């Protein structure tokens, strides 16, 4: 699939899965989509390993946009991106946007064939500068 992929990272697997459900409702299978949530023990938190795996599941040659909730999800996602193969790392961005609204807006943009930069900009329009 050539559309930009979307990854949802929340401290809570329930939030991540729920946001992914909302994305699917908008774009069906037109956008590669993956989510992860929870720390390596399954409690609230995020896992670099799980984020890397989610990026892999949502991979698109046109790039992947990650939507995160709170600080640790952002820091762990940025770390995960740096740990990717450099050829892949350059095609993954962490969006500064609310996780649910950002994921739905980004995926909708992605479903029309938008570039990674366009997808990111659409999600980030939701955040005050």
């Amino acid at each position, binding site marked *: 699939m050539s559309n930009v992929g979307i990854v949802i990272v929340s401290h809570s697997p329930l939030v991540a899965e729920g946001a992914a459900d909302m994305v699917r409702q908008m774009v069906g299978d037109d956008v590669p989509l993956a989510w992860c949530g929870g*720390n*390596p*023990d399954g*409690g*609230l*938190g*995020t*896992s*670099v*390993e799980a984020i890397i795996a989610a990026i892999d599941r949502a991979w698109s040659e046109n790039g992947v946009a990650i939507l995160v909730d*709170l*600080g*640790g999800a952002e*820091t*762990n996602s*940025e*770390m995960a991106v740096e*740990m990717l193969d450099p050829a892949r790392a350059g095609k993954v961005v962490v969006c500064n946007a609310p996780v649910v609204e950002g994921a739905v807006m980004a995926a909708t943009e992605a479903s029309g064939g938008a570039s990674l930069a366009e997808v990111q900009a659409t999600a980030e329009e939701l955040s005050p500068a």
Partner: protein
Amino acid sequence: MITSAQLKALIEALSATVAAHAAELTDLDSAIGDGDHGANMKRGFDAVAGEADAISAKPEAEALKAIGTKLVMTVGGASGPLYGTLFLTLGKELTVSPDDYPAALRRAVDAVAARGKSAYGQKTMLDVLYPVAEAVEANKSKAEIVAVAHDAVAATRDRKAIRGRASFLGDRSIGHIDPGARSSALLVEAVAGVL
């Protein structure tokens, strides 16, 4: 150069102090954050300790990188990438300039600041790590360095959090010491006890 035996003792000391203070770190984090700092740190340092033999068999710089990677992969909160970056950068810097510990520490703390998009004075671990890096550069004694670290933790009490979840509390974060600052001081004390 840190020997293999020292590396093993270091890993044991780090994981022991984190385990002994996990409840305290969680209490500190509960007051101004999400209350996961103790459990997260313990998960990470337990994982490092679980591979103490394999890690300490590596050359110093590689061992430090292995500790960093393990923390990144297992902590499960922002402190994973932050402490992970500290150890990863120490390893990278010591690969380039072996034995220049003060410079390696300074660059590692700068890397933590970049990773956390933070700076000294924002009520974070950096409030301890920067004074410690300075004390190491000034060739202070181990006892002095440990004292600097603990004083720096105390100084976070009157600061307002600017980064991390504690910043959501605004002025209400004032009056509590920062859990990340406290864990940093504990790690510094453990290192000073071994090296």
